[in-house]
């Protein structure tokens, strides 16, 4: 079997209660900056609280609502439950 391939998905493809690590944040510079200020930056572990538009995320114990537009996208790498527990 091939080495572990990391699955990168848009943030809104997460399921409720699933945790993921943010891998890439694409978008216009000012917005990316604003997202980073609010904690949505590469490496942050987030959990999806509620799906839909906008979605609800748990980020470092805070709740953020987020809706992307066509120029903005956040890619995340889902963390399996075991990994999330050990980290």
């Amino acid at each position, binding site marked *: 079997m*091939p080495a572990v*391939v990391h699955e990168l998905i848009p943030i809104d493809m997460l*399921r409720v209660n699933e945790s993921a690590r943010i891998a890439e944040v694409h978008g216009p510079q000012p*917005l990316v900056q604003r*997202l980073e200020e*609010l904690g949505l930056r590469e490496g942050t572990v987030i959990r999806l609280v509620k799906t839909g538009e906008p979605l609800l995320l748990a980020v470092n114990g805070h709740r*953020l609502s987020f809706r992307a537009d066509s120029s903005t*996208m956040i890619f995340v790498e889902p963390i399996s439950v075991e990994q999330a527990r050990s980290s």
Partner: protein
Amino acid sequence: MSVTDPTSTATRPLTVALIGNPNTGKSTLFNALTGGKARIGNFPGVTVEKKTGKFQHDGRDVLLVDLPGTYSLAPRSADEMVSVDVLLGRQQEIGKPDAVVCIVDASNLERNLYLFSQIRDLRIPVVLVLNMWDIAQSRGIQIDLDQLRERTQAVIVTTSAAKRVGIEDVRTAIIAATGAEAFTPVKLFPESFYREADSLGEWLTEQGLGEVPFYLRERMLLDVHGETEHRVSLKANDDLSHYLKEARARLASEGCRIPLVETKARYDWIRTLLDGVIERTSPEEQQTGSDRIDRILTHRVWGLLFFALLMFVVFQAIYTWAGPFMEMVEWLQQLITDAVQAVIAPGTLRSLVVDGIIAGVGSVVIFLPQIVLLFLFIAIMEDCGYMARAAFLMDKLMTRIGLSGKSFLPLMSSFACAIPGVMATRVIENRRDRMVTMLIAPLMSCSARLPVYLLMVAAFIPGTTWLGGWIGLQGMVLFGMQAMGALVAIPVAWLLKKTLFPGETPPFVMELPPYKWPSVRIVFQRVYDQAKAFLVRAGTLIFCVTVLIWAAGYFPADHTRLHANQAEQEQVEATLAEEETSERLEELEAEARILSANAIRESFLGRAGMVVEPAVKPLGWDWRIGVGAIASFPAREVIIATMGTIFSLGGDVDEEDASLMQTLRTATWPDGTPLFTIPVALSIMVFFALCAQCGATLMVIRRETNSWRWPIFTFVYMTLLAYLGALVVYQVGTRLMT
């Protein structure tokens, strides 16, 4: 296009590739299909295991090739390139597959379909196997298979491979698919991308690099430093890299950004594909206290219902709770009037104090209780964390008119006052959005409109109640008036977004603070600040306008006879015992009414009123209301004061009850018919709901936009709307009433 030649298929074994995301049960399905007998080898030159197996179905031999589990067909290495080569028939040892089986985890369709979407672009017949069907079912995930089949145009089977359920269906589907037409892939990317892929093909042929299949050309463009690019570059030189770099730059300039465009286009396709196809009945959740509250308060149905109900209760409460406080203010006002009348003899000074200052300023101050209540509710909602939830909920609705939830807070604070509302639009990063929000903020029903509604509602709307007094018609009309500005703002915002500020709906990020009990100190501070600002305005601006209006309504008419009349009235009254009346007194009162009506008609105000009357007559207004409305353009709450002054000067005051409400009820046209009817009251309210009668707001808009253009625009559009709205309400209302 037919993939296989019908004459030869009877004898030739079919080649079928099996592909899927890791952990979808691919090995399990492979074993189930082939009976566990696999030949294991290696693909030449790479470390990838080559696993093939055979089975027979319907008299056909099938060679099944297992491909490595992968999330995507975007080869980044030679190992990953193997799957693409096999699927495109470029793997000599295997030959072109007649069909491909794409296995996905049915309980995780959204993500697994990404690979399926890439396989579609290969133009090979596909069997889509929804494995883990048992798990999907036990989790309450319902998938509308017929709908999915229709939308994907693919052969779809469901299996529970571990339980050997549905395996035979897969075999049948494979045979069926190999004979079927391969579907033409839908074009997911922008047209410019396909043009670029075509020119790349021409360029490659020119360079003598031969025909490169369409899918590989797509991959060259999409995968920066990907394996496809790498492999062709080996044969050519750096030219290809340069060419691709330029091609990607061209695409980016047309808004097609690589590599973002692929993921976005494919997931967008999946989203539309699955919209209404999947239903999850029992999402597993484990949540904190705030989350539990949020589950209801941010629910798209319950949350909105709660919000609407809350607003309704707030406005009902403002109406009912403020009553006793208002009576207190009224009583105080009467007390002062009596005191002044006892001290000052009838004359110009008394008129200034009683008709001008007390009637004017007093009629505004009386609404302090309501305004305090409104600010109290807003402060509590903000401090306990609910306001952010409301913005979250509203985002869904706001996106329909091209705005985001970001606009909600400025608009909600505009319900108290548009000035902080306009300033609060600074939090909106997107300029177009900010402009639209700023231009509709003055439409929100600010607290200065409240007095107008309250007065009109109390005086002219019947006090019918239902449900044991919990719901009243007056409260409902009040709620309706409060909601009207917001409702009218919807089409206005939509139009502005379509015409003057076109652009996409901006993204939305906002923190939802945890719920907490509102802090008494913070809430008190905010209410106190706002109440103080209201009283200061009443004491300064409104006071000045009131005095001006009084002067304009008092001069230049001759008041000597009127003052003599008033003095005599008081003398007669003094000689009479309580409850007693005399003919002389009644005569005097009648004369006074005529005298004061004449006096105000001759005044500057009266003359100006005659000029305005034709314009306001279609709204059901007489010149007094017209003058009042015009005088209140600097600040709308002035209307109460000016009406108080005008009607008081005009002698329409009832001696027993000096309140403006009573005065208005008895006001008549010159021919004696009542001036105010329900349509007139409604027309006044609608006018005030929509009109830009606030100099301060317009000044703030000018400061925030740094241009006169926008305040002027706001003033013009709102005033036009107000006039038309009032016209329609009065005209339609009168027709309905008769």
